């Protein structure tokens, strides 16, 4: 290496502080930091290994198609699985238009004034409210006041309100990413604002909004507290057939099994957890796939 390269290397190692880090103190510090990073992974791995160990034995076809049972070996997750599917379907159907509608309003139509700022602060605040409070809201408003009863519909509407901030934020990002020259091209041929949004901006932002939707659903599928609060059942021996039926969901069923004194139910719970995590993994994989395939690099 010539003199310039050597000097350059020396300069860069000084400039990033690496040269002086041979001291013991510096090395210990770096080590501590690495340990911090690793804690999360260690816990994650331990958890997964533990759950797999305990649950894999119980994970079979009967588990998926059986109802819950007082006999641990016969307990199945079928009603909870169906309940979760119903819930996710309804929640997606309700939250998608509402979330995108709010995002479109805020990004494309809302004037930059104090009312708009107030809306945005509101949404940010709602994102930080504990989920159980959404359950209380759902109980008072959907179950009681609107008389939906302790139904899947009430659950879906409550979950919608819960994940709406997530969907709105993700959709806004997606809309913001669509460059202005697309909108200008549409205006220049005499399109109105709504025509531009509906036919150009929104279709271009669709992949991002779908990713946001899936993110929201990933959060919703694991939610337990709000659903328990509004009266989802924990022992269900039927499968739901309509939005007004009573229901249970996978995380609730898992909670129920964990809470039972008999130790065999630990394994059943672990099997349920494996299923829940598998569903979550699939949803996130789909989201990543959609993002990589369809998201445009402007």
């Amino acid at each position, binding site marked *: 290496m010539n003199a310039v390269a050597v000097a350059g290397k020396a300069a860069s190692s000084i400039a990033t502080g690496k040269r002086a880090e041979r001291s013991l103190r510096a090395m210990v510090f770096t080590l501590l930091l690495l340990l911090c990073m690793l804690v999360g992974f260690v816990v994650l791995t331990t958890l997964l290994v533990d759950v797999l160990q305990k649950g894999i034995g119980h994970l079979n076809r009967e588990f998926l198609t059986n109802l819950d049972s007082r006999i641990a070996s016969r307990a199945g997750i079928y009603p909870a699985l169906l309940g979760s599917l119903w819930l996710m379907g309804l929640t997606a159907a309700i939250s998608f238009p509402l979330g995108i509608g709010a995002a479109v309003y805020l990004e494309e139509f809302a004037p930059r004034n104090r009312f708009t700022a107030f809306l945005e602060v509101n949404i940010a605040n709602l994102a930080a409210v504990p989920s159980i409070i959404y359950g209380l809201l759902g109980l008072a408003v959907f179950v009681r006041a609107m008389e939906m009863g302790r139904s899947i519909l009430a659950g879906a509407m409550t979950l919608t309100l819960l994940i709406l901030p997530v969907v709105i934020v993700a959709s806004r990002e997606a809309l913001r990413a669509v460059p202005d020259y*697309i909108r200008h*091209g*549409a*205006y*220049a*041929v*005499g*399109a109105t604002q709504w025509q531009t949004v509906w036919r150009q901006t929104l279709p271009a932002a669709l992949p991002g909004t779908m990713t946001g939707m899936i993110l929201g659903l990933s959060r919703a599928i694991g939610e337990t507290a709000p659903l328990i609060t509004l009266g989802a059942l924990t022992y269900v021996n039927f499968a739901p057939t309509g939005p007004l039926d009573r229901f249970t969901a996978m995380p609730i069923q898992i909670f129920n099994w964990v809470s039972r004194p008999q130790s065999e139910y630990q394994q059943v719970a672990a099997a349920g957890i494996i299923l829940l995590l598998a569903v979550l993994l699939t949803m996130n994989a789909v989201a990543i796939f959609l993002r990589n395939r369809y998201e445009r690099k402007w």
Partner: protein
Amino acid sequence: MVSEETRVRVDVEALRRGGKGEDELGEPVFQLRDLEASYSGKTAVRGVTMDIPRNRITALIGPSGCGKSTLIRCLNRMNDLIPGAKVEGTALYHSQDLYDPAVDPVEVRRHIGMVFQKPNPFPKSIHENIAFGLRVNKMTDELGHRVERALRAAALWDEVKRDLKQNALALSGGQQQRLCIARAIAVEPDTILMDEPCSALDPIATARIEDLMGELKDRYSIVIVTHNMQQAARVSDRTAFLTAEADEAGHRSGLLVEYDRTDVIFTNPEDKRTEDYVTGRFG
């Protein structure tokens, strides 16, 4: 003193245009009087008084910061999209006040089309790019024919007719720009505004678009912003020279200096600032 070469070129052009002299101009498309545009209180261009003729190509030239892009965007109310933008003075389009409160900017833009500096086709098929404008303007009868006519008029039809469904972004830069021209033409405007339409293109693509402009002149009135003086000299009939200057209060803004027939501007300008610019002494 302007060089022999430029003078000769301009004269040849005047001959080629077949004698569309000043007396055949008829009623102007735009009549601007003391037009001034500002963004959030800061003036971008002022003192614009000019008549833009029908079925001619009018060029706006000048150094950067002289407000030519702002000016052209006043003509189809695209400045409305910028918050804080304000236009004062008079802008008449076929004797109608463009900025009358009763006027709908959406309608204005249908009659006055625009082509932008960077080609901006929609991320859709070639057919859909043109069909979009037709649909939003409810011109959907004989949609296929209209699309074809627009593409032919933009000299793009032969190159893309084999597959109209291919994505517009797969076209070359020059083709994309011609697609944008076709898109503008499809909704039957009578005026086309072009904001530096060739600055992102290579010389061959540029030449094709300049030829196209010559053809389009018959049916449309064209206003073009360009920072390329030779281009202005080549294609335009009239040229307006703007520059950036401080006013009495010391605020710098764009300002119309001189507006005349192109051959006059380039061979015998009245204002010294114009002469300095076109002879390349600055800018």
